[in-house]
């Protein structure tokens, strides 16, 4: 028997275990390893502080979503030895593999910013990229009586790059509903050149910030959190005071990658952007947030990547040419508050543009336009995630290759 070993049973790893269980030849064993028993619906963390979702919406037992054909091991990973085709587990055990899939994701690293985990952490400053962080922030938002609410992105890239902006939009809605919006100043502090950075999206969406009275501080590269005076300080000595800091710490790949000496400066694994093979070895593939690919770190991306990767791994198993190519496709519903949302659909080459999705002229979803059905789509995504996406079933009418149908693109003929 030959073995496919999958490291990490988050969104990407779970999808791969399911698709390969259905499609790989009988001579292949499939093993998947993760250290924790729970599977988190990470897009749901954003909604917790606004009392839209609670724990039961976002946490389920991992094994429920894994196929019976795959052997699941709960263990901590020590390191990958690519030259020996094996992975060492904590405690001394080892796993050999013929094909390795790295799907260890990424997480927040607040210790990377001076002072971020100081005396305000968990009290006046919070994150919402972990279940624990979102839970604490939920209480802080419930008890909020007004003041300056500062949302800060430490550095790019981050998981779900629009989530901090959605947080600002949802905070505007939630605090209005609670009657304390007029006592609250919302400040969005970004290291980029603005809240929106792509030309077409900026032109269409910038007015939202003014309408919602969200102040933007741009080109702010955080150097330090000053817990004494409750302010964040940039490298060029600009300061923003906060009564509550919603911090988006640097995102980094798993420490396993660093221990295995297989990552870049943020522990992301250098990956071939077309075939999704690790640059380090032909029989190692990388998927989801663990890659260094220049597309968004998001569940929808992991889903599209999984379709490509499944095809390529099946070819690799048969020693055939790998024909599938990933185009960087991402598809994201963005909450804009007050029961509305907008939708983005883009890839490596094509920035988000207006139009209809997935059907031209019909929709039902509107690209880059604020509609109620986009918001409903976002909430419906939770059901799709637990019941279809993790199983690796295709989403109807949405292919892994981005479609230009319905998009208003000024395309030049070259």
């Amino acid at each position, binding site marked *: 028997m030959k073995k496919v070993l999958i490291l990490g049973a988050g969104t990407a790893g779970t999808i791969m275990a399911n698709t390969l269980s259905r499609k790989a030849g009988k001579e292949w064993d499939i093993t998947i390893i993760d250290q924790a028993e729970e599977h988190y619906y990470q897009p749901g963390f954003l909604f917790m502080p606004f009392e839209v979702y609670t724990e039961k919406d976002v946490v389920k037992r991992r094994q429920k979503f894994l196929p019976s054909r795959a052997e699941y091991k709960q263990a901590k990973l020590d390191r990958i030895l690519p030259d020996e085709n094996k992975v060492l587990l904590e405690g001394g055990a080892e796993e050999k593999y013929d094909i390795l899939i790295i799907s260890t994701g990424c997480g927040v690293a607040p210790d990377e910013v001076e002072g971020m985990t100081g005396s305000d952490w968990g009290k006046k400053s919070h994150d919402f990229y972990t279940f624990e962080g979102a839970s604490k922030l939920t209480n802080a938002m419930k008890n909020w009586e007004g003041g300056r609410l500062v949302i800060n992105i430490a550095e790019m890239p981050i998981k779900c790059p629009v989530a901090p902006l959605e947080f600002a939009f949802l905070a505007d809605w939630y605090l209005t509903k609670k009657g304390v919006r007029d006592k609250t100043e919302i400040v969005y502090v970004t290291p980029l050149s603005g809240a929106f950075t*792509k030309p077409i999206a900026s032109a269409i969406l910038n007015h939202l910030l003014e309408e919602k009275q969200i102040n933007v501080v741009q080109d702010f*590269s955080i*150097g330090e959190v000053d817990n004494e005076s409750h302010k964040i300080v940039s*490298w*060029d000595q600009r300061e923003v005071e906060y009564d509550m800091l919603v911090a988006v710490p640097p995102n980094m790949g798993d420490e396993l990658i660093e221990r295995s000496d297989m990552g870049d400066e943020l522990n992301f694994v250098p990956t071939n952007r077309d075939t999704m093979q690790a640059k380090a070895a032909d029989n190692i593939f990388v998927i989801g947030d663990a890659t260094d690919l220049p*597309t968004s770190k998001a569940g929808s991306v992991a889903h599209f990547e999984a379709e490509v990767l499944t095809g390529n791994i099946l070819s690799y198993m048969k020693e055939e040419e790998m024909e599938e190519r990933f185009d960087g496709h991402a598809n994201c519903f963005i909450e804009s508050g007050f029961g509305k949302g907008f939708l*983005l659909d*883009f890839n490596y080459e094509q920035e*988000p543009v207006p139009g209809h999705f997935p059907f031209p002229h019909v929709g039902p979803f509107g690209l880059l336009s604020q509609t109620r059905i986009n918001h409903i789509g976002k909430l419906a995504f939770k059901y799709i995630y637990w019941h279809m996406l993790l199983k690796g079933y295709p989403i109807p009418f949405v292919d892994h290759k981005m479609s230009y149908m319905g998009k208003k693109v000024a395309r030049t003929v070259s």
Partner: protein
Amino acid sequence: MPTKEIAGTTIDVTEEGFLTDRSQWSRDLAGALATEEGIELTDEHWKVIDFITADFQEKQAVPGMRRMNKVGGIPTKDLYRLFPNGPIKKAARISGFPKPASCV
């Protein structure tokens, strides 16, 4: 897309003045773009530009601050001294690469 006359040549740029066709870039052009930012290029600036150029080949992206520090060996404080007010954005423009951006 707008075009722009600079250093005796015509270049294609975005609204914010970032090159859209890197093949139009030259070292002379970099000097002219830097002058527009009020920067006179020294060897230290060129170390940054050369790193961004080499790194873009590998990653198809302008390196972030941490990559500048760890891989390029250029400390954040130096970057702010060399390219004040938004160093990565300015260095990217002078190097002829796109503006560092999010997905939207």
